[in-house]
């Protein structure tokens, strides 16, 4: 009796499952597939439209952003490509392909700005933090925290001296691991939620010396450049370009990553 019931419900589940796929023309994954095929067929505009529609429906994934950016790149809209590659990078900072594509896109831009190299320990720290995404760092931090208490407990109750010694060491090591993974998770989260970087979207922008259109022009930058936002007054923002120069521009010229 019970056996029959189980088989029945299993069949029902299967039915629903495949049924979903059969109807699935406008499920997000089907749209994604369609866009992917357009891209394969070199129909970049169509692919772009579909990827963009998914983004507009608030779907989020590294692959989606990455593919949208790629379609922009193929359409030679390099500022948009830059924006979405950077957004994809936010989700998966360690993805090698994203970083490579950002560099290729940079080369296509009007301005070749020499980036001020970061100090070696800043670079090391960043590559450490970028090893995992925020979620996995958080999982690790929880696991390490748990292990800290496991070994503290062992340390407290064991009568054996050697056990006590090793459990003490392990407690310290896991405490250190816990702290670093928590810090990494914190920085990852900070990186993903920060709104202090933007891409120049206007073809050409005069960067002013102060937040006033009558003030003197310091330099000109073109679309696609990633800038750091330092300050904001009204609809003016103070930006810092990769070579370290600072100046003011209208916020409308920018799109925050």
């Amino acid at each position, binding site marked *: 009796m019970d056996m029959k019931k189980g088989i029945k419900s299993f069949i029902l589940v299967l039915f629903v499952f495949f049924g979903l796929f059969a109807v699935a023309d406008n499920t997000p994954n089907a749209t994604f597939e369609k866009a992917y095929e357009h891209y394969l067929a070199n129909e970049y505009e169509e692919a772009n439209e579909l990827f963009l529609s998914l983004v507009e429906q608030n779907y*989020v994934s*590294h692959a989606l952003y990455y593919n949208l950016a790629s379609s922009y790149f193929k359409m030679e809209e390099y500022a948009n490509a830059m924006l979405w590659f950077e957004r994809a990078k936010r989700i998966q900072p360690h993805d090698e392909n994203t970083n490579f594509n950002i560099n290729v896109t940079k080369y296509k831009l009007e301005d070749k700005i020499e980036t001020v190299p970061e100090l070696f320990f800043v670079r090391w720290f960043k590559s450490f933090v970028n090893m995992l995404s*925020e979620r996995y760092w958080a999982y690790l931090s929880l696991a390490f925290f748990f292990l800290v*208490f496991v070994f503290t407990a062992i340390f407290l109750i064991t009568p054996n001296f050697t056990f006590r010694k090793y459990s003490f060491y392990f407690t310290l090591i896991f405490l250190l691991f816990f702290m670093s993974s928590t810090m990494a998770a*914190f920085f990852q989260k900070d990186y993903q939620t920060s709104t202090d970087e933007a891409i120049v979207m206007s073809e050409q922008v005069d960067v002013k010396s102060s937040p006033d259109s009558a003030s003197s022009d310091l330099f000109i930058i073109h679309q696609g450049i990633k800038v750091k936002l330092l300050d904001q007054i009204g609809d003016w923002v103070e930006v810092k370009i990769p*070579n370290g120069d600072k100046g003011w521009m209208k916020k409308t010229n920018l799109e925050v990553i």
Partner: protein
Amino acid sequence: MEIVSKNRMRFLTIIIVLLSWNLKAQDVSFVASGPGRVAQGAQFRISYTVNAQASNLKAPTFRDFNFLGGPSQSTSSNMQIINGQVSQTVQYSYTFHLQAVNLGVFEIGEASITVNGQTHRSNKLSVEVVAGNAPAARQQQPQQRQQNTQAQEVQTIGAKDVFVRAIASKTNVYEGEEIAVLYKMYTAIPIAQYSINKIPSSRGFWTSELSDRRGQPKQYQETFDGRNYTVAEIRKVYVYPQQSGNLKIEPLEMEILAQVRKAQQQRRGFWDSFFDDPFFGGGHTNVKKSISSNTVNINVRKLPDNVPVEFSGAVGNFSISASVDRTELPANEALKLQLTITGKGNLKLIDYPTIKFPKDFEVYDPKSIDQTKVTETGTSGSMIFEYVAIPRSKGNYKIEASKFVFFNPAKGNYVSLSIPEFEIKVSKGTGSGESILTSVNQKELQYVGSDIRFLNKQSHALTQKKLLFFGSFVYWILLILPLLLFILFIMIYKKEIKKRSDIVSVRNKKAGKMARKRLLQARKMLDSNAKNEFYEELSKAIWGYTADKLMISNSDLSTETVIDAVKAAGLKVEIVSNLENLLHECEFARFAPANSENLMNSLYTQAYDLIILMDKEIK
């Protein structure tokens, strides 16, 4: 302001420009030039030419010559554009006007000038001053004129016989307004020759001479102060006041050679009288006389106060036209914008109007082409300004509309003319020089020409935006959970420990009490002579006491474990052996057939003493 022959100056500059054509813009050349030979009394020019923006000109002292004026400055520039590369040559020349006084060969020392903080020295010049008409003297020669219309019997020349008048067309003008100054020579006696000795240098005026003043000056008869004169318009200039206030046009100084009849009383023959005719000069002597014109006072008014920002100093009446050579061009190619200002007024003094090119354009100083003419009616014609700009990147740009403002002195107001807006479409250029910020480092070169990597396949179902895990509620709960578990664990553990230690202490305390109870029971049994019960109670007392005192569980109780435990507790050897003996004897006596009451008594006493002893030893 120096009066210089503009035409010749321009000619000279052009020659200099042509000569210096192959000069590189970077090399500074500072050259002095002048005539090698001049006639005595002739005026000549010494020019210093430098091909860069210079300052602090130090001229030598022209002590061997009569210094007439200078330096007057002029600029000419020449721009070349080859494949978007712009090279510009500029010529600045400084001209001094000198007059040769003494015969001989004179040296003019070197001059120095500062270019970009560096001092440059010119070459030395030597000038030979010869008598009479020297061919090298290109300067204006004294104009000779035979005046033979009127022969009058004058012995000396009176002030009324010959004089010069300077007549200004207006005496009440605005700054920059054109004034014509006509110099008229009135003569009532024949003049053999005249020469202008000193061209007036009038402070505050910019002077321009008529462009075509070749040929004979205009001559006519005029009655002045009731006397009939022959009038020659010897000179006409246009002056433009450069500052406001009461300005003076300095007098013109000239020298005349008048023909004065010799005082001869005797009559002579026909031929004599024939030769007496002034035509032959016979019977006349030439008398030299210096005369100078009157000073003209000009009242110059300031321009009205409401000066528009775009006003560039143009006074007169003008029209403007602007054009670009193309509206669509690739990046890195030159765009030419031509601005033509046509009209009448101080054209040569107009500053080029500012054109607002887009910021992304590389803009060069405009080239000005002078197409003006100074005629009888004043300066007219057009000034052409050619602006060159090179767009550096692709895009749609606007050259903003701007204004050209001039002052119309006739109406007494500012007139604003608009320069239209131009839309420029710049397509992608072919050149490699892209932007101002261009600098590609080695690391980036590896990406040249490479394509982006292929798409990512979605490995799992797409999800809508979700919250970050780190710092979320679940995260905190999961973080606190092990902490709570740990605290719970420690609490339970401690309780357990406490419980255990409680049991131990109770047993320890109860051990003596229990033993006493059992011994008392054993006593009773001894009294009632119940042999078996006595031994049972006695051994129970000993066993129970040691088990409770030494924490041995009942299941482990045996003679060996008890002895081991007692040894481990560190009791004295004799107590251990006593205990061992007692335990053996209890076992043995219990099952022995004959037992005296004495033995039971002694065993009881032994057990009693031992327990008391052990109670003392074990804490």
